[in-house]
């Protein structure tokens, strides 16, 4: 499987992967998160586990189960880590722990390396058996609500290392803190090249008009993705340039607030026929791929963001992206070079108009964007980094390691 990336991924990444695969051949690597579908973590795991296995590593992916109350609590924890003031009572923390205790009894936690994704399964570390335990935080914790952040610290400190997506999310924690950007898979259904027929099929089925430029945002219906701000920006642009706005998102099983936000977005869009709101079912990857390919301008106008992988996805398709300057978005967009970073609704509208009126500039930016993603944000680089962290933990204290 890894050979399929030859010619696409950087040569050095593939070479190092093979070296590390030699080191870890036959050893077990367990990933645990809280959802099989919806959201960037599940998506990357669906692709990463087969790659790890093809390298000869005994990789497994387990998903913790929880009741509705558990996911309401973990959503509050998630929001608090992103800065919202949320009250998590001791009883709620106890429930969070109890659900994890039940999961620990049902999941085989015996592995040489265990990577726990996000706070939902964080307490599993209390039940560690052996191996290196790594907590992978995908959330923007640059300005967290302190009570909740500190309470979670009781678990974080029991890991061997923590991984954040962006340096500014890290805190002085007296433990190894690695910085690893997430990634996209160029061969997945969401990112592979599509034929004209495939694109047309999607466009016709979803009722997307192609007679005017399309402005697209692909994201969950979540207030931190600012869908209402996107509609406001579109309305400013619409006074000057005829265009169509497409807001496309998938429901996630661990996000109970999504349906409320979707209702609000629909009400705000009112009866404008040029605002197309698509609630795509899970695994609509080809549709998202096609939408990104027909879009003229792609937005990711997030107010808070873990990383914002939809930015790299669109850049991989040669699109200039206008993104909120939050979370990992500035790491993907070099302002004015591979896209634009914005800080306001007005700024978003201005940059959309700029790109719609200068198609040559948009094309050049898009080409640079694709190359930047190839070098920095493909899945082979992320697998390389996870294995490197595992190797670094096993060689603790060394800053230069010869393989």
């Amino acid at each position, binding site marked *: 499987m890894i050979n399929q990336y030859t010619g696409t991924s950087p040569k050095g990444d593939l070479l190092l992967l093979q070296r590390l695969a030699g080191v870890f051949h036959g050893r077990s690597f367990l990933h645990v998160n809280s959802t099989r579908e919806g959201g960037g973590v599940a998506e990357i795991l669906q692709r990463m586990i087969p790659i790890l296995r093809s390298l000869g590593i005994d990789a497994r992916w387990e998903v913790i189960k929880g009741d509705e109350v558990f996911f309401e609590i973990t959503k509050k924890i998630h929001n608090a880590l992103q800065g919202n003031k949320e009250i998590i009572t001791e009883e709620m923390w106890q429930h969070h722990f109890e659900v994890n205790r039940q999961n620990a009894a049902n999941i085989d936690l015996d592995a040489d390396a265990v990577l726990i994704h996000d706070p939902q399964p964080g307490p599993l570390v209390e039940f560690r058996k052996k191996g290196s335990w790594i907590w992978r935080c995908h959330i923007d914790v640059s300005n967290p609500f302190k009570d909740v952040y500190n309470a979670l610290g009781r678990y974080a400190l029991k890991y061997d290392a923590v991984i954040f997506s962006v340096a500014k999310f890290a805190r*002085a924690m007296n433990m190894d803190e690695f910085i690893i950007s997430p990634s996209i898979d160029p061969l997945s259904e969401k990112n592979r090249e599509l034929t004209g027929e495939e694109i047309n099929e999607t466009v016709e089925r979803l009722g997307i008009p192609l007679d005017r430029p399309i402005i697209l945002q692909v994201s969950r219906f979540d207030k931190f993705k600012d869908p209402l701000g996107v509609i406001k920006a579109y309305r400013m642009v619409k006074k000057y340039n005829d265009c169509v706005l497409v807001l496309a998102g998938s429901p996630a099983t661990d996000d109970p607030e999504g349906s409320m936000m979707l209702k609000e977005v629909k009400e705000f869009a009112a009866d404008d026929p040029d605002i197309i709101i698509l609630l795509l079912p899970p695994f609509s990857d080809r549709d998202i791929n096609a939408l990104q390919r027909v879009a003229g301008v792609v937005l990711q106008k997030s107010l808070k963001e873990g990383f914002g992988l939809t930015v790299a996805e669109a850049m991989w398709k040669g699109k200039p992206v206008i993104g909120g300057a939050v979370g990992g978005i500035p790491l993907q967009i070099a302002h004015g070079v591979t896209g634009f970073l914005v800080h306001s609704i007005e700024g978003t509208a201005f940059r959309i108009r700029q790109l719609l009126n200068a198609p040559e500039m948009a094309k050049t930016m898009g080409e640079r964007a694709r190359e930047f993603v190839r070098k920095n944000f493909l899945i082979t680089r992320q697998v390389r980094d996870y294995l490197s962290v595992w190797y670094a933990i096993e060689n603790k204290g060394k800053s230069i390691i010869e393989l």
Partner: protein
Amino acid sequence: MIEGFEFKQCTSILKSTGKKAGNLHTLRDMIARVSDDCIFHHTYQYFLKEHILEYTNDFAHWAGESLEERSLAEQLSSIDPYEFDNIKGLRKELLYVVDDYLERFPEPREAMRGDEFFFNETVTLVFPIGLKAKNLAEFLMAIKYVDIGSIYYHFYEARMRVGGGIDDFSKWIEESLGKKGLAERIRAIDPFMHNIENIRKHIEEQIEEELRGDMEAMGVEE
């Protein structure tokens, strides 16, 4: 028998120190206190990044872009890390430049929240890439083919490892091939003034010229 040149490559995984600075005073205090690995990352390893902007280290980049202290950014950018034999000397120079600026402008602005300077280190993995050149022609082919991580390792990182401003390429060319002139011409390529792709191009040019000269000397026409 000539000893072949084995190409290696390095890849660095970023590690946070958890320390940050929101203004120049804190930056100065941190530069004085952080590890040698941290200073190394923010200066020498800057060349591993494909920098599009005009700076030559992370401190200058931050001063220019986040604090908008353009004059300081220029001064920090003109510090050539390869002038120093060790991190101690480089650290001293960084502190001298920041102190001098603070004396003239004692109340510099604060960075926006979230735009502070974040102090990082790296864990570097070094690995052979399975390419060995036995002569200059093979070396030229390899130079054209390898990733920039390999050129960084042998041309930039080597200067600290080998010492005396000498890189792996010119060392092998001089010691194994006995081509002192070519080695000196490669050593004369200023690592501070180019990005890695340009370094690759300059090395290629020098070797092609040498090979042309060798062929002419042997009476071989192109």
